């Protein structure tokens, strides 16, 4: 029993405008409060937009993002090449799982960023250390999901394959891998998110601990704005860029998965 008034109220609540109310109110409050009681360093929405325009126009922000993205893809690829075949093997063969699982479970709880001091020691403060951190971070979600995917193959299909006399490699190629793909896809998405977080952390820490030695990337850029030129507006632009890239990466992967394996996406 919905009255006309209720229906109208419901329509009002479901418009997109409602969602904008709070952000707009917060931004106005921030601008007003910051301009009246803040110091000249206080970041303000208007100044953030200006800073963003300057940083994009000068090409600094896109260049830093591209450098970080390149490292993420490098580490991601390295991790995928190692983790997915290994995970499939572990999911398919009990013996492989029993012997390799202790290693995975021992190193998995160690946060990737904790490895950074060792990575700096072994690989220096350049790109290779950052790539190694991303690879380490991405490795574990990839392998865990590959194992889960290969384990959840319908046993009837495996028996059917055995009945038809397929050899191991063919069984893996035609039965195990297609069945594991959805789970691998989930792993890829998680790994991408984790990798992007790890690259920001790695570049930040390298910037902080290696005396700001120019290794580039978005994290390094943020640290320079914090430690050397103290420009909070620009730090916030970087933060928003980090968030935006994270969102775009996830959307991109999800769209790719929908296209490549439509049966896997709920």
């Amino acid at each position: 029993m919905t009255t006309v008034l209720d229906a109208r109220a419901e329509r009002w609540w479901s418009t997109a405008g409602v969602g904008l109310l709070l952000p707009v109110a917060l931004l106005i409050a921030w601008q007003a409060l910051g301009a009246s009681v803040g110091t000249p360093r206080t970041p303000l929405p208007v100044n953030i937009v200006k800073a963003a325009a300057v940083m994009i126009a000068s090409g600094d922000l896109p260049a830093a993002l591209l450098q970080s993205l390149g490292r993420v893809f490098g580490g991601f690829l390295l991790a995928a090449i190692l983790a997915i075949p290994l995970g499939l093997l572990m999911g398919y063969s009990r013996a492989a799982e029993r012997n390799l699982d202790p290693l995975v479970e021992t190193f998995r709880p160690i946060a990737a960023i904790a490895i950074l001091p060792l990575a700096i020691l072994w690989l220096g403060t350049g790109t290779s250390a950052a790539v190694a951190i991303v690879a380490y971070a991405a490795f574990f979600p990839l392998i865990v999901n590959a194992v889960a995917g290969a384990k959840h193959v319908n046993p009837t299909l495996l028996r059917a394959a055995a009945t038809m006399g397929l050899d191991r490699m063919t069984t893996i190629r035609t039965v195990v891998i297609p069945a594991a793909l959805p789970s691998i896809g989930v792993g890829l998405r998680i790994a991408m998110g984790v990798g992007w977080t790890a690259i920001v952390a790695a570049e930040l820490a390298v910037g902080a601990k290696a005396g700001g030695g120019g290794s580039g990337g978005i994290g390094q850029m943020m640290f320079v704005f914090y430690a050397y030129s103290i420009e909070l507006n620009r730090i916030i632009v970087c933060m928003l860029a980090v968030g935006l890239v994270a969102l775009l990466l996830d959307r991109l992967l999800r769209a790719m998965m929908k296209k490549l394996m439509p049966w896997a996406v709920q």
Partner: protein
Amino acid sequence: MSPHVGGTRTLPGRSWGALVYLRTMLVFAAVWALVAQWTDNPILLPSPLTVLDAATDLARDLELFEQAGISLGRMVVSISIACLLAVPLGLAMGLSRRFDRIVDPTLEVLRPISGIAWIPLALFIFGIGNALPVFIMTYAAFFPILVGTVAAVRSVDRRLVDVARTMGIPQRTIVTRIVIPAALPSLLVALRLGVALSWTAVVAAELIGAPSGLGYAVEWYRELLATPQVMSFIAMIGVIGYLCDATVRWLNRRFTPWAQSPR
């Protein structure tokens, strides 16, 4: 308490598993020792025995446990704050579509920004000290717990709520007696994710901007080029990370035994 279905492993099976674990790790240590022998540079790669030595020393003068205690304390505080903020907010968002429509877009803008990306700005606001890691960890744990709570509340069986409403049970009782118990299992799963993420964030935050804690210790010993100590603290980060996860899983089993899938 009757023994739950989840852990019906017989003792021989379990000790066999421990043996296999030890065997794998021994092989790993042997390979490590060989590579260390071949590298012949104790700063670059000390042998496993040297690391074990350093770890026992650090454990004996309690430094290992002191720094671990500091990091762990920060995490407990952060997780508590994150739960206090995220669970009520998530309950409200899950229960009221209107409230959700108002709040959700703002949160969705913040959510993709990882806690670690807040470090420079938070470092400027809080300076180096306890506040920075606590803020970063709270932020890192907040979103998984919030998202999990909202999803958990939404997945509560509508019929249960409808039945309660038909019987004239007041809204508050419905929330405390039906919605929260029904949402608890997924909520604890979300908590597990929150704990894992905040533990990752604490290491980064302490590495960059804290005067103490495991992350700080790792970096401190790296500057001294004391690699065995660095490795000991890294191992401690792993051990605590594992224990935290095990604790949350135990909470899961203890408080929501009905939601455990038999494995």
